[in-house]
């Protein structure tokens, strides 16, 4: 089933590329961009090997936590429901949620953002591979962290599937993104100015941020190697247990949402002329507010020139059987 769903996703991607030359260009550009980001990340990660484990921890934990938060926010705000392998489309088939789940998870990793995330996550091993114990911790963190990213975004989008595809939310999302982007810009500006002018120990600030991030659900997995490096075994165990529990919990939630969707396929965005935004072309943009704004900026309506073709041209299939399942 996993191989089949990954194959399905690849076929769907290939077909959408074949359909529009712009999407091919978009993919190439996006892949190049992502490759640049990954290369940059690796350069930084390798450079960190020459610093202390403390510095490595204080840099990697907040950055990777940001990656996880980015997956959650962007999948909710920009990507909406990934329709490539939309669970509702399996409703006619005799498949069970628990059979489908591993395959959908793997399929979610197929694509530029998925591959980039996996590569960046594995980069954690590169920077932490200083002792055997740290290597193992880094690998565990990479796997748990990457899986958490995908599960978090899938669970959240499944939970809000019908809500996310509503036009009202799409409009709201544009505003939220703008606010988020503005906040990000202002925030970085303020921070850099504070760092420049006052030079009030940015290292201490970083340490605080790292410690807060490591105890947020988004950072549980990523904090594992830093605990091991410090020899804080209790903290490491706790982080490992919490991260694993998060994965298991998200897995269970997603299974439940998926199961519900298979017997009550809420039709995503039917009828009301939902403004649909491009899916994975948008994912080619960096996982961050800047990328989100870049995606949005391509068109004020949220339907972008190239990516918009993805969904805009898909016929609004008002699945009557499923449309009825929405409550009104």
């Amino acid at each position, binding site marked *: 089933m996993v191989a089949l769903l990954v194959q*399905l996703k690849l*076929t769907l991607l290939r077909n959408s590329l074949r359909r529009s030359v712009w999407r091919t260009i978009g993919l190439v550009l996006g892949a190049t961009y992502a490759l640049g980001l990954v290369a940059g990340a690796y350069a930084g990660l390798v450079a960190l090997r020459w610093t202390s484990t403390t510095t490595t921890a204080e840099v990697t934990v907040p950055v990777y936590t940001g990656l996880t938060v980015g997956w959650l926010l962007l999948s909710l705000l920009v990507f909406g429901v990934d329709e490539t392998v939309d669970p509702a489309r399996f409703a006619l088939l005799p498949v069970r949620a628990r059979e489908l789940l591993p395959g959908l998870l793997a399929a979610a990793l197929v694509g530029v953002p998925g591959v980039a995330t996996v590569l960046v996550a594995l980069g954690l091993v590169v920077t932490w591979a200083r002792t055997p114990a740290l290597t193992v911790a880094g690998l565990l963190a990479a796997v748990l962290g990457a899986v958490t990213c995908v599960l978090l975004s899938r669970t959240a989008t499944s939970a809000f599937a019908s809500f996310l595809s509503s036009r009202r939310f799409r409009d709201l999302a544009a505003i939220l993104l703008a606010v988020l982007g503005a906040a990000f810009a202002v925030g970085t500006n303020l921070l850099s100015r504070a760092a420049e002018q006052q030079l009030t120990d940015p290292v201490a600030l970083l340490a605080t941020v790292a410690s807060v991030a490591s105890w947020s659900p988004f950072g549980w997995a990523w904090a594992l190697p830093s605990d091991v490096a410090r020899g804080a075994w209790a903290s490491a165990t706790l982080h490992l247990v919490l991260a694993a529990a998060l994965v298991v919990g998200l897995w269970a939630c997603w299974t439940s949402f998926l199961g519900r969707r298979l017997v009550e396929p809420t039709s995503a965005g039917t009828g009301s002329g939902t403004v649909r935004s491009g899916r994975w072309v948008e994912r080619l943009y960096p996982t961050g507010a800047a990328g989100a704004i870049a995606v949005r900026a391509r068109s004020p309506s949220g339907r972008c020139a190239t990516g918009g073709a993805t969904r805009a041209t898909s016929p609004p299939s008002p699945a009557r059987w*499923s449309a*009825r*399942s929405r*409550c009104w």
Partner: protein
Amino acid sequence: MPVAMQLRGLVKSFGAKRAVDGLDLDVPAGCLYGLVGPNGAGKTTTLSMATGLLRPDAGTARVLDHDVWADPARAKALMGLLPDGLRLFDRLSGAELLTYVGRLRKVPRADIATRSAELLEALGLTADATTLVADYSAGMTKKIGLACALIHAPRLLVLDEPFEAVDPVSGEGIRSILRRYTRDGGTVVLSSHVMELVESLCDSLAVVAQGRVLAAGPLDEVRAGSTLQQRFLELVGFHAGDEEGLSWLRSSSS
């Protein structure tokens, strides 16, 4: 005669509206069964609940001796479904879609190849086998949906408005497929609001209105000497002759 689909006391409400209101239905095996009713009669809702696509508020649905809601996936494995306006993987070509549906339904690979070629041929889609389903017309989408419903050789086919948007030639093709399918022991349940079609195609039917079955049984029994159209209008209580309203629609001589 064994029963292919048995619905008992099905109820479904959408807000204050009771779409299906204690509906009972028995579909004998091996027959072409029509479900007719005016718009909003609850046909689609009934079929959704009978096929594991919409959980009923009350009542039971059994298909081929399986309780649908005890294990929807198992029940779906036994049936071929064609909902109206179904969601497919429309970024696949017709042939690819059939292959993936077949593989997801665990049909042996060799069978998928022969069956999909035959189905595409029978439905006149061979020339468009490599076209993306997203680029299909409404009628072609219907036909590829029917092919998907048949790929695993189910014993029960449930089709919601299978002839809507289908041209007369393809319509005849679908009819002959359905007739042959029932002759070979399969059961078809289809909904329609075209009386002539049901009259010419189905062996038995049920008239549904306001979420209830008004009449059910073999075609001749239900129409009782009259035409189905006439009988249907009587059953749903249509008052002909009311031509007073809409007078503004009369085209004036000027």
